[in-house]
Structures are given as C-alpha cells and as structure tokens.
C-alpha cells in the first residue's frame, strides 16, 4: 500500500474529458513532478486531488482509505491535510499579505492570531518576503506574489503540497532557493506534487517524473535513481529545454 494512490482516476470539464484513467502511487515525502504538453491533464490532477474538480470515475486513496469528496466533512478532512499553490497565485487582492496568510489558519483552523504572527514571520523569512506583510497583492511583482502564494500554503503545514508552476515567475537565484526549501520540506516528510515546465527544476528536485499525455500517464522516470531518463521523458524534456 502506498501513501497516496490514484486508481483509474477520471475527470472532465463539462462534456470534455480531461483525465481518462490515471493510476499512480506516491510515497510519503516523495517529490513528484508532472510534466507534459498543455491540456494533458497535469493541473487537473492537482485540482482533482484537492477536490476542486470532481472525479467522474475511479478513486483516490490516502493511507489506504478512499478520499470522500462527496461530503462536506470528507472535503474538509482532505483539505485540512493539503495545500495548493496556484499557477495564477489566487491571492486575495483586498487583503494584506498578513491577512492572506492568516485567513485560513484563523477562520478554518480556529487558531489564535498572536502565535500565528510569529509563524508568519518565519514563513516570510523562508520565502524571502520578510517586511512585505503590510502590502496588498496588487503592490507586489509577479515573483513576489508567487512567493506569497507559497508562503500562504506553508502556513497550513500541509502533509501534501500541491504546486502548479511554483517557480514560473521567479529568477534563477530564487528558483534555486525555493527548490532548496521544497527539498527540505520533503526531507521532513511533506509529499510534494508539482506541475512544472522548468526542466532544470524537474530534473534536480524530483524523486519521480511523470509524463502526461492526453489525460493518461505516458511514462515515468526516477532521475535520482536512473542515470538515464525514460526515452519518452528525455525527448519531452529536451524539447521543453530547447523551447526555453
């Protein structure tokens, strides 16, 4: 039994099928990178896992138990163990950075504000965003917004961290710093599933690379174990790197 198991997972947007039966096992503390062409279902994998897009077939099991997405209690339970960083950041424009970071822990987690403030400063330090807590998202650059989105997810102490293009707006030095942070989180047992087009990050960070194509898994590779990637993955990564 794996920590997280996708079993014949299917999903669609309206009548448009996106995932056509995905089977994937993920271990605790693993860093899994989903790669593949646009529309192949990478982001949908994350959205399905956190219950934003409903399953149209199959199931997902967490520690052997099927996740119940149909009830409020089930959704609450699964979301309390996960956090997601969105490609478009999804920051709340009318709230300050501090309010963005504290909203879920206070409103959902019912925690007291004072101890959270200390935690917030630590998380802002980790993401190199200290001193920005009074600003609002429209005052931040793209890279800063992305780091606040990461910080907001970290405030939830997730067991599973889902990230959709978490380094797309960052410069090479900050990408290295964030990759380092993700590696440390994984070493502490946080399972990370990310979607990325940055092949350097994917290669250096991932325990496993999953290539998606047309709603299915086309190939997987473990770059830390194999010297050579799977041929299909190597081809895709070379093409992506060439484009970049």
């Amino acid at each position, binding site marked *: 039994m794996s920590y997280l198991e996708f079993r014949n997972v299917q999903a669609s947007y309206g009548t448009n099928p996106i995932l056509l039966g995905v089977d994937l096992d993920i271990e605790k503390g693993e860093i899994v990178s989903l790669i593949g062409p646009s529309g192949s279902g990478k982001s949908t994998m994350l959205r399905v896992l956190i219950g934003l897009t409903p399953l149209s077939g199959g199931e997902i099991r967490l520690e052997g138990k099927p996740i119940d997405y149909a009830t409020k209690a089930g959704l609450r339970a699964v979301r309390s163990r996960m956090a*997601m960083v969105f490609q478009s950041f999804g920051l709340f*424009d*009318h709230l300050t950075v501090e309010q963005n970071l504290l909203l879920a822990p206070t*409103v959902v987690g019912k925690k007291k504000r004072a101890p959270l403030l200390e935690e917030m400063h630590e998380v802002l330090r980790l993401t190199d965003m200290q001193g920005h807590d009074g600003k*609002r998202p*429209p005052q931040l650059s793209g890279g800063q917004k992305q780091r606040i989105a990461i910080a907001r997810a970290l405030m939830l102490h997730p067991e599973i961290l889902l990230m959709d293009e978490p380094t797309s707006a960052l410069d090479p030095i900050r990408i290295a710093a964030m990759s380092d942070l993700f590696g440390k989180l994984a070493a502490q047992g946080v399972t990370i599933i990310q979607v990325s087009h940055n092949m350097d990050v994917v290669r250096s960070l991932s325990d496993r690379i999953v290539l998606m194509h047309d709603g299915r898994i086309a190939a997987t590779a473990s770059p830390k174990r194999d010297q050579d990637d799977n041929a299909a993955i190597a081809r895709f990564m070379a093409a992506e790197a060439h484009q970049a």
Partner: protein
Amino acid sequence: MQIWNWHGFFMYLGSGFIFRGALVTLMLTVFATCAGFVLGTVVAVMKRSRHKGLSLPARFYIWLFRGTPLLVQLIIIYTGLPKFGIRLDVTTAALIGLSLNEAAYLAEIIRAGLDAVSPGQIAAARALGLEEGQIARYITFPQALRIIVPPLGNSVNGLLKTTSITSVISMEELLRRAQLLVQEHFMVLELFTVTAIYYLAMTSAWDMIQRRLENYVNRPYQRTATPVLLEPEANIAVTS
C-alpha cells in the same frame, strides 16, 4: 398677474407641509434602497446559481420588473391586488412597489459585482478549506462591494426622484404635496422651483454620502497607486 412671486417662493421654501413631504420622499428612498438591496442580493445569488430552479425564477423576476413601468406596477399593486382580497394602504403599496422595482435593478448591479471576483480567488479559498459562506463573507462580498457602490449610487439618485411616481396612487410625498398646493394657490413656477430645490438638496447630500462610501470600499486599494518598488530579483535577473 405677476410672473414670479418672491413672497410665495420663500413661504413654500419654509413650509412645514412641503418639508414633511420631502421627509416622506426620503423615507421612501431609504426604505426601498435597503429592502431592494437585501432582496436584490438574494435575487443576484439565485441568478448566479447553477440550479435552474433558482436561476430561472430570478431571471423571470428581473425580466418582469425591469420590463414594465414602475407606474404600472404601482397601480396593479394598489388597485389590482384588492380585487384578490389583498388591501394595502397607500404607504405600504408604495413601499412594496418601489422596493420590488429597485431590487430588480440592484440585482443586476450586485450580480455584476459578484461576477467580477476572479474564479482563481474562489478556487484558492476553497483549497484553503474555506466554506461557501466564509468565502462569500471574507472574499466575494468585500471585493464585490467596490464594484457595486458606484452604480448603486446612481441607482439611489434615480430612486430619489422616481419616488415622485408614487404620487399617482396619492402617496403624499414631496411632489404630491406641491401639486396639492398648486391646486389651491396656482403658484406653479414657485412651488415646482421649491420642489426642485428640495430634490437637489437631497441628491447633493446623497452624492456626499456616496463619495464617502466609495472611499471606504476603496480603502484596501488606495496605496496601490504608488509605484511598486523596483523588485530586487529583477536586478539579480539582469546582472546574473
């Protein structure tokens, strides 16, 4: 016959009869705005629902009340309903008519405000574990208000003057009281000038309130006008 009677003009300007009429106009406006806002919010939320059982009645309501004149609605409420055994006094009929009508217009304004909040923020809020009621309270409504307030102000300004239509069902608001005095004293120009001054005073006061409301809902965004400091990582990116 003299064209303009200054004495009459000042007499009507200070008239308690006219002043109380203006208070009635004000009361009608405040009540219809509040009731219209509450009902309009309900209709807007219903219209945005994915369930046809909710969205279709909301569409029908907006279609009906925006598609017919307030005058017709008032006459039907005041003189039509008694035929079905529902007898309303003038004030109640006027309040109901104005509120129902205003709600239809405000529903569309509120819906546009709710639609303006990006779906990405809603998805992020759900992923954070917030429930729908919490999302409405903390995310959607505060941001929608900023979009809603300017057109809401227009609508209230319009409503202040539209209340004069209730004079046809003999509601004794500002215009009706002026008309009553005209019938007695025939000082048409003086009385309607006084009436216009009262309406102008009320709409001007509302303009001031609206400006304050706009400032209030824009508070979170005001500092964004200052230029964003040059991002250090931009420097790093250029030099590395």
